C-alpha cells in the first residue's frame, strides 16, 4: 500500500509505531500516577483526626472543629488548619492541632456517621441544584457567582460580615442556611441567587459540605483568601 520510503522520517510505518509507543507510555504513566493520587486523596477518618494525621481530604467530622486557612512558609502557600495551628520552629511548617472545637448548628460532637450522612446529603444537593452552573467549587464550574472553595471562611459571612448580619442569625452556619432557603429575600448583590427550593435539611447539609470543603488541601488555591481585605483601602 505504501511506496518504499526514502528515509525513516517519511516512513508511515515508523510514525505509526512511534504514535503507538508514545500513546502507550503516556497512558501507562497516567494510570500509575492515578493510582498514587487516588491513594493520597481518600477521605480521612475520625481516627485520623484523633491521631492528628493530616489528610488532603479530611474526615467530615472536621465540621466539629475550628477551620482556618493560613500561610505555610515551608510549603510557600496557604494551607487549611483544623482545630488550631502548630508551627515547627525550625522549618516554619504549619500543621493542624485538631484540638479547638466549635459548634456547628449547636453541637460539636457530630459523630463520624452523622457527619458523613450530612455531607452525603450536601453533595447530592449540590449536584441536584446545579450549583456548579453558577458557582465554582475548587475553582471548577461557572463564573457567574463567587467561588465556594473557601466560602466557609469568607469574611462576609463572619460575625462582623454584612451577610450574617443581613439574615439576623447568630451563627455563620445558620446565616448560610437561612440564605440558601430564601435567597431572593436576602439579596447579596444585583445578581441574586434564584430560589432552588432548598429544604432546611438540604441547607444544613450544604453548609456542612462547604465547611468540610474549606478543610480540603487545595495546594494554596485560592491565594490570599480573605487576607488582604482592606489593603486597597488601607488609608481609610
Amino acid at each position: 500500500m505504501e511506496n518504499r520510503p526514502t528515509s525513516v522520517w517519511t516512513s508511515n510505518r515508523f510514525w505509526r509505531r512511534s504514535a503507538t509507543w508514545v500513546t502507550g507510555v503516556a497512558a501507562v504513566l497516567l494510570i500509575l500516577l492515578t493510582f498514587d493520587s487516588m491513594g493520597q486523596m481518600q477521605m480521612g477518618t475520625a481516627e485520623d483526626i484523633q491521631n492528628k494525621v493530616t489528610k488532603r481530604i479530611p474526615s467530615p467530622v472536621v465540621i466539629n472543629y475550628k477551620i482556618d486557612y493560613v500561610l505555610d512558609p515551608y510549603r510557600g502557600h496557604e494551607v487549611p488548619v483544623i482545630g488550631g495551628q502548630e508551627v515547627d520552629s525550625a522549618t516554619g511548617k504549619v500543621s493542624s492541632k485538631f484540638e479547638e472545637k466549635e459548634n456547628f448548628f449547636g453541637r460539636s460532637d457530630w459523630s463520624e456517621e452523622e457527619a458523613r450522612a450530612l455531607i452525603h446529603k450536601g453533595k447530592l444537593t449540590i449536584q441536584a441544584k446545579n450549583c456548579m452552573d453558577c458557582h465554582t467549587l475548587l475553582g471548577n464550574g461557572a463564573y457567574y457567582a463567587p467561588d465556594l472553595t473557601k466560602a466557609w471562611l469568607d469574611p462576609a459571612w463572619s460575625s462582623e460580615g454584612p451577610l450574617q448580619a443581613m439574615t439576623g442569625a447568630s451563627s455563620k452556619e445558620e446565616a448560610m442556611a437561612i440564605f440558601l432557603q430564601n435567597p431572593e429575600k436576602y439579596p447579596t448583590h444585583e445578581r441574586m441567587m434564584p430560589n432552588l427550593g432548598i429544604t432546611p435539611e438540604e441547607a444544613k447539609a450544604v453548609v456542612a459540605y462547604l465547611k468540610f470543603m474549606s478543610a480540603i488541601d487545595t495546594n494554596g488555591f485560592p491565594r490570599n483568601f480573605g487576607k488582604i481585605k482592606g489593603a486597597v483601602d488601607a488609608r481609610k
Partner: protein
Amino acid sequence: MQGNRLYEGQRLALKYFTVAVVLFGAQLLFGLIAAIQYLYPSFLYNTLDFSIARMVHINALVVWLLYAMIGAVYWLLPDEAGVEVVGVKLGTIGFYILTAAVAVVVLVYLFVQVGPGTEMTLWLITEGREYIEAPRWADIGIVAVVLVFLYNVYATVMKGNHTGILVVLMADLIALAGLYLAGMFYTDNISIDQFWWWWVVHLWVEATWEVYVAAVGGYILIKTLNANRQVVEMWLWIEVAMMFGSGILGLGHHYFWIGTPEYWWEIGALFSALEPVPLVGLFVHVLYDWGKERGKGNTIKNVPAFAWLTVETFGNFLGAGVWGFMHTLPQINLYTHGTQWPAAHGHLAFFGAYVAIMISAIYIGVQGKAGLKEMKMTRTGWWAISLITVGVLLMTVSLTLSAYTQTMVERGMHGATWEGYFIAQANKWFVQGMGWRLAAGLSVIAGYAALVYDLLTVTKKQPEEVYKAEEAAAQTA
C-alpha cells in the same frame, strides 16, 4: 442536480448533520440568554436562571458536536472503506433513540430544572456535574447508542479497506467512548469526583477529540484538495504521537488545585505547555498542502469546506494553543483558575478546534448529497463564515479583557472573597468586556442564520460554470 448514489451510511450521516445544525442554533440561543443575564441579571430571574441557560448552552454544544462527529464518521466510513456501512439499520434506530432521549433531557432541563438532593434526581433530572449534567438514565442510553455506532464502524472497516484514517479513528473512537464511563459514578469526595470528571472532559477535548479532528481533517484535505493520501496519513500518525504524547499527561493542568498531590504542577505544566505543538503542525500541514496543490494548478473541490478547514487550523492553534497556554502554568493558573480566563479560552478553542471542522464536514455532506464534483462559495457562505469567525474572535478578546480585570482586581487586589468577586464584576472594564461579548454573540447569531440558509441553498446557487462542467462530465460518462 443529477441523480447520485449515496451509501445508506451517508444518508444516515445527513440525518445526524441536520440535528447537529438545529442544536447549534439552540446553543447560540441559550448562550445569548446567558450573555444578557451577565449585563441584566433580572432577565428571566427565577424562570430560566443563568445556571439553566448556561447548562443548556454548553450541553447543546457538546451534543451537537457529537452528532456532527458521528455524522462525519458515517459519511466518510463507506467512502474510505469502499463498502456500505454494516448494520446501518441498527444505526438508524440508534439515531432516533438518541434524538428522542436528547429531546426529553432538554425538556426536563428546561421545565423541571432542579430536583431534591437525592439519588433519584441524579438518575432522572440532572447529575449536576458541569458539562456532563445528563441524568444517569440518559448516560446509559448514550452508551448503548455509542456501542451500536462503534459496532458499525468496526464491522465496516473489517469488511472493507483499512485506510490509515480509519485505523486512527477506530482506535480513537473506542477510547472516546470508554472515557465517558469515567464520568458515570457518584462520590461524596469532591476531589475524587473532579479527578475522574476531568478524565472525561479533558481526555475528550484535549486528546481524543483532537485526534478525531486530525483524522477527519485528513479526509477533508483529500476530498477538497486531492491531497496525497500517503503524506496525509504520515502527518496523521505524527499528529497522533504529538497529541496523545502531550494531551494525555497534559491532564495534569486540571489537577493543580482540587486536592491532588503537588507533583501534578510539574507534570501538568510540562505536558500541557507542549499541547500547542501538534496544533502548529496541523496548521502548517493544511496551508502547505493548499500551496502545493495551487502550484500544480489544481482547484479546490469544495471551497466552503476548505475555507472552514482553514478557520479550524487558525482557530485551533489560537484558541486551544495560544489561549490555553496563556493560563496553563500553575504560577499563572493560581490566579486565573475559576475566572473568565477559561471562558475566553473555551469559546475560541471549541469554535476553532471543533465547530469549524464540523461545519466543514457538513459542507462535504451537502456537496455529496447534491452529487457536485466541485462546489464554490456563495456570497451568503462568505457572510456566514465572516460573521461567525469575527464574532467569536471579538467575543474571545472581550472575555479576555474581562478576565484580565477580574484576575487583577478579584484575585490580585482582594484575595478572591465574595466581596472581591463582586467588586471585580462591577469594574467598568469588566462590564465593558461583557457588553462587547454580547455584541459579538449577535454577530455569531447573524452568521448562523446565514449559514443555515447557505447549507440549504448552496448547491442550487453555484455559478454557471459549475453546472456546465457537471453536464459535460455527465455526457462523457
